[in-house]
Structure formats: C-alpha cells, structure tokens
C-alpha cells in the first residue's frame, strides 16, 4: 500500500500519526480511502466544487510534484505528500 504522509496540521485527525498506509492505485483512491480510516481528512484535501485537490495544495508522489493531481497513479511502494503549492517569480 502507498504511504501517505499526513501534514502536521491534519495529524489531530490521525491521532498523531505522521504516516499511514492507504490502499489505492490513484491519488483519488487514496483520498477516498484515507477518509474511511480517518473521517474528515478528505474534506481538507479535496475540493468537491472543483472535483480536484484543494486549491493551494500540491501532491508530491515519489519526490515529484504531480501535474495530474487526483488522476496521478501511485504504486504499492509510493510515498505521497500533500504540501503547500509554491508559485514562482
């Protein structure tokens, strides 16, 4: 299962867990499944109006910022982070 790193601001929902193993082959599946384990997380990660990752968040899969967001595929060994997106100059 992919390993999702929980942002510190959301670790109150995971009972302090910093990383959790989540089943799923895409980021969308991870976001849906993680909410099963820790209800409330999806609402912080997912923008239901836009059907997209929450504005201002970047999804990092295996060290690279994803350009596909929810559609990005993840492997069993993948590591997934949700970080503030950074705009350039």
């Amino acid at each position: 299962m992919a390993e999702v790193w929980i942002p510190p601001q959301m670790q109150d929902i995971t009972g302090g867990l910093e990383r959790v193993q989540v089943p799923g082959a895409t980021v969308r599946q991870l976001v849906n499944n993680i909410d099963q384990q820790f209800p409330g997380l999806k609402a912080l990660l997912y923008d239901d109006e836009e059907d997209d990752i929450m504005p201002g968040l970047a999804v990092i899969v295996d060290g690279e910022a994803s350009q596909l967001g929810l559609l990005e595929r993840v492997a069993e060994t993948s590591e997934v982070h949700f970080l503030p997106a950074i705009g350039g100059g």
Partner: protein
Amino acid sequence: MTLDYKPNLVLSTQEFNVVGTRPVRPDGADKVTGKARYSADITLPGLLQGKVLRSPHAHARIKKLDVSRAAAYPGVRAVVTGYDFQEPAGRASDLTEGAMVNYKFLSNNVMAKDKALYKGHAIAAVAAANAHAAEQALNLIDVEYEVLPPVLHAKEAMQDDSALVHERLAAMSTAAIRAGGILDDDDPRRGTNIANHFEFRLGDLEQGFNDADIIVENETSTVAVHQGYIEPHSGTAMWHEDGALTVWSSSQGHFTVRDYTARLMGVPVSSVKAIPMEIGGGFGAKLTMYCEPVAAALARKSGAPVKVTMNRTEVFEATGPTSGTEITVKLGATKDGRLTAAECHLVFEAGAFPGSPVPGGAQCITGAYDIPNAYIEGYDIVVNRPKTAAYRAPGSPAAAFCFETAMDELAEKLGLDPIDLRLLNSSREGTRRATGPLMPKVGFIEVLEAAKAHPHYTAPKDGKARGRGVASGFWGNNTGPSAAVATVTPDGCVNLAEGSPDIGGTRASVSQQLAEVLGIPIEDVHPQIMDTDSIGFTSNTGGSGVTFKTGIAAYTAAHDIRQQMIERAAKIWDVDVADVTYEDGVVQHKSDTELRLTFKQLAARQVPTGGPIVGSAGVNPPGAGPAIATHIVDVEVDVDTGKVEVVRYTALQDAGKAIHPSYVEGQIQGGVVQGIGWALNEEYFVNDAGQMMNSSFLDYRMPVSLDLPMIDTVVVEVANPNHPYGVRGVGEVCIVPPMAAIANAIYDAIGVRLTSLPMNPGAVLEALWEKNGADK
C-alpha cells in the same frame, strides 16, 4: 583586475548541434531598434486615457465617494469605482504552476470598496479624451475618509489587540495554505491579521539538539523591496459589438490576464482575448494584474477603447513588492560538522491581502541540506501595505539570508571551511527533505565542488577591510501546462507558435529545442507568442518554467513534424514507413542511399503529398527539477563611511543543461545584481502613517553598472532526467544567495554580523560603532 582563468565557464556534460549554442535572439533586433511594441505602445482609433485616484491613507474607511463632479468634467467619458467590478466569493482557485488566487481579494485590490487598505490603493478611475482631462477630473472626485490606525509590521499585526486590516478575515491554518477566507456573517469569532500558520516536522527535534555539540541561533529581518522592472504596468481594453473584449498588456501570463479580467468583468473567458505585448521586466510581479480590469470597466462604461498606464510612483505604491520578514533559525551540529537539527520560524508580511511567499520560504529554507530533525513554521500576516507579489524565487532569498548566515557562523565556530561544511551536509538525490519528500536528482555537490575549485575562492584578498563570503540557495522550480504549434513553410522554415511570454530569451531557448530535433538551423525557426484565442492554454512565465515546459511542447511538436516528414517521404518513394529514417534534417531510405530528401526539399513538396505539415503539442510535464546555487563574493568596507563595495562576484549554478548559455548567464547575472541591491541599498522607506517616502528611482536606489564588478558565472550541468536535454529552470535561484553571501563577506571584512537588510552605510556604521563601543 587581471583574470587568471576564463570567465563565464559552462561545465558541459552533453553536447548537441543547436542546444548549447549562442545564436542571436529572434526578438533582439526589433528590441534594440525600437520596433518592438510594449504595453503602452498600443494606439487605437478613439482611444481614451484612463487615470486612477489612489488613497492617500494606509488605512481608512471610505465613508462617502461622490464622482458626479468628475463625470461632468469636459472630456470625461466614464468614471468607475469598486462597485463596477464583480466581487466573486472569497474562495481560492488554482491557476496552475503553483499560482493561486482569491478572486474576492483580487477584485478588492484592483479597486477598493468600503476600505482603503494601503497608501496608493485604487479608489476610482476616470477615462477621458486625454490624460490631462482625466487627471483634472480625478481632483473633482469627492472622498470622505475615516482614517484608521495603520497596521504596518507583522509583529504588531500578530498581537491580539492589534487593529484589523480586514475585520472578518479568517485564519486558514490547514495544510491547504490558501489565501485566507472570510468569516461567515453569523460566526462570532473575531477576525485576525494572521491569514495563515503552518508547520513542517521531521524526525525528533529535541533529540536532534541533544545530539548536537554546538548550537547556533540567528535572527534576521528584511523589509519590502521592489522588483524594479523598467516597464510600468499598462493595460488597454476594447469591447466589441458582440460583447467580446480584447485586452492588450504585457504580463507574465496572458491566459491569467484573460481569466482574471473575465472573472472581474463577469463574462465568460471565451469572450475575452488577451494579446501579449513585449514585456519590459517582471521578475514575478507581472503574474498578477492591476490595469487591465480597470481599463475594461472604463471601456465598457464609455463605449470606447481605454488605456490605463501607471507612472513609477504608482508602480511603487500600488503594485506588489516582496514581503518584509522576521525569521529565526536555530542549528545544531556535531563537532565534526554534521547538522543534527534545524528549527526555523518564518513570519512574512503579505501586504493588504493574504498570500505572502512564506510557503516558498518555508520549503526552501533547509532545502539545500540533509538534516535529520527539523521543525519549520510559517506565518502569513496581513498589514496595511501594498499586496506583495512574487519576486524571483519567492520567499527563498529572505529565508537564505537567515539560514546561510547561521551556517557561516557555524562553520566559523567549528573551524571548518564554509564550503566544506556545506559539502558535508549537502542534499543529494534521495535525501529526505525537512518538508517530507525525497530530493530528486540535484547538483549541489557538483556546484560546491566547482566553487571550491574556482580561482576566486583562493585568490588573495588584497586591500584594507576586504572580506569574502559564500552562501548557497535552493529553489524548487515550477512547470505547468503549455502548448506549441509548429507549421512548416514551403521554403523549409518553421513558424513556431507558443503561448509563453518571452521575458528572458525563451523564444530562442524554445526554438533551439525544436531546431535540435529537426536538425535545421535555428535561423530557420520563427517563434511567435500567440494571443489567447490562437494557442492552447499555457501557464504563466514564472517559476523558471518556460524553457522546461514550453521547451518540451516544442520538442514534442518537432517530433510530430519528423514523423509526418517520414510518412511523406515514404509516400513519395512508395516504400514502407519503417524503412525511412530522419537524421540531421535529412529523410532517407535505410538501404537505398539514393532515396534522400532534405528538410527543405520535403517542405517544398508538402502540399501535393498530403497537405500542410503542422506539428502540435499540448503538454503538462512533471519533474521541473530543483535548482541550486552557490555564490562567492568579495567586498571592501569603507570603515569611515560604512559603504560596502562589491569588488568581485562569482555565481555558480546547476542549470541542468544550458540551452542558450548566454541567456542562462544573463539570468544569473541579473539575479545577482538584484540581490546585491536587496542586500545593500534597496528598501521601502515607510513613515509611521504607512506612506512610502522614496517612491521614485531617484530615491529608491537600485544598483547600476557603475556600482558593480563583472558578475562571473559558472554554469554547472547536472542533467534533469525529466527533460529530453536535461533542462532545469535558471531564473530564480540566482537571487537567493547574494544577501547572505554579502553579509558573510562583511563579517569577514570587519568582524560584525549584520542581521537586517539593507546593509547600507548607516547600518554598517551602527554595527561598527556598537562593536567598537565608540560614541556616535
């Protein structure tokens, strides 16, 4: 000074035919002969001139706004206020490549409604037959202000009893670091000036400091500085009879201009065409907009085209400088120099609306290093100053000023060479970053080794009060969607249509990638930047992303052409496509050497063999690849006046692959010069009422060529595996190290550590007096 080496080195690892060469830029001749058209060069039949009335107060409630006398002034055709703009809901939207916008705040920044939130905030605008009439009419607008106490500094704004910039601003303390929201009407909580607070944690911070033999703590502050582009903002708008709107402006992204203007005018994006003009500098500040919607509102009301152009004072007072910051860093290390822990607190002023570059500062501050235990927190604070805008590597320069001066102190206390300390702790592929993810392939070690081997590093420091400093910097680089359409002409050239405004020579660097694939001379590629109706969506020219993302679009479009050329030749020769190859601009049969056509020969036969050959691509490539730089600087300090002179400067940077080395060097040199200005001279000098007192280039001192030595560059090439030629963005990380490098050099020269910017003569003298215990 006699050089004992070849300056401006490129340490190439891969050679190509066109990529890596230095052709003349396609837009160069028009720019140096005055033929290129910039934003304010637009003229149209019946064009009106728009002027903006701006708040004289940093914080004031608008109790009454009466424009009737202005509207009646001879020659005036329209007057608009904040109520002529849509005010979308206060929620954030993504704009690709990391950019984000809250349209409510954008609308309120373009023109105030109930409150003026900074000196220079637009209150109303007038369109008239000429600029003089428009300016006269501005004097006839009656505004009654209730002047409120301004909140000018982050630390003051963070106090519980501080006056509020926005009475209903909500803190958005989640991992989604969005521009802050607005409390619901029935929410009993008090508003806040703390738009956001976030944290990153890695490992066990307490244990990390327990494992340390030595701890260094540093606290720095910086004030707002401006990007200082030569071309002021300008926008021209014209409505058509069918309700369509055309906008002309220079920007770092005309698709953003289209989208923003459409939203604020309340029309679909498909009815707005944004035409990109040449751009006279942006450095991040032209990722947003100010004039275009004002021109559009005036044009709609007057029924005539309107142009709104800022003067320099307006640019300083009403567009985004970078943030003022307060940053602390605590580092722990073993006695042999291994970093064991880092604790960083970053407070950034966002200006009047949420959205400072503190996420960038927080994610870059430890980015260059392998630190097992870390804690980083960031605060985004609203104050009564102009809304900040991006400036090269947003957030990272101020962060590096604190972190890299702490590293210098650590090296000194450990008795280590400062480059050796960095080598010992440098990030490399697979390093766990303090923010969590693993580091992709990066050339920090190669850059540091090149710095240590550079003759500058060991050159004698001749002269009195001379010092040498080094510092490094990190920036993640960005990417995003991009499009390219390449059309083969009958005479064998290629017209390349793209959507990335060319702010730093990217017409050349993108064309070179297309020419490389096709094996044709770069002179045969004719790039054009298309309007928003004529090319697919292309994200902003920002984040050092264009040569990467639009380069990949052009590369892909070129391969599309190659394949079509192969198919046309196979058709002409009546052979199997699999038996035809394309190499160095020649299509030929694999076994029959007589079957051979050059690119130009095939181009001439394209129509009868199947119609025009057009290659196209729409891409959104991942993996921009991080950028790393290390700078070496020598300064001489005049201990009588406090003046610091930069006498030698060498900037080393991993470019992945320098597609056009001259423009890579130019980006590095430009970034360094801006960094030197930031370090030594530049500041928004703001009085207690929040008014900028130096809003002209006469008083806002930016360095000019006479102030500077030749900025020597070393381009290190550690290929980015996610780009076909190895490109990494180059335009941003070059501004990250200068402030820290110069501070470290000043310490080496006179033995005092300066922790606030700018390090101007007054600050240097104060520090010397304090050190020497002398009377002032």
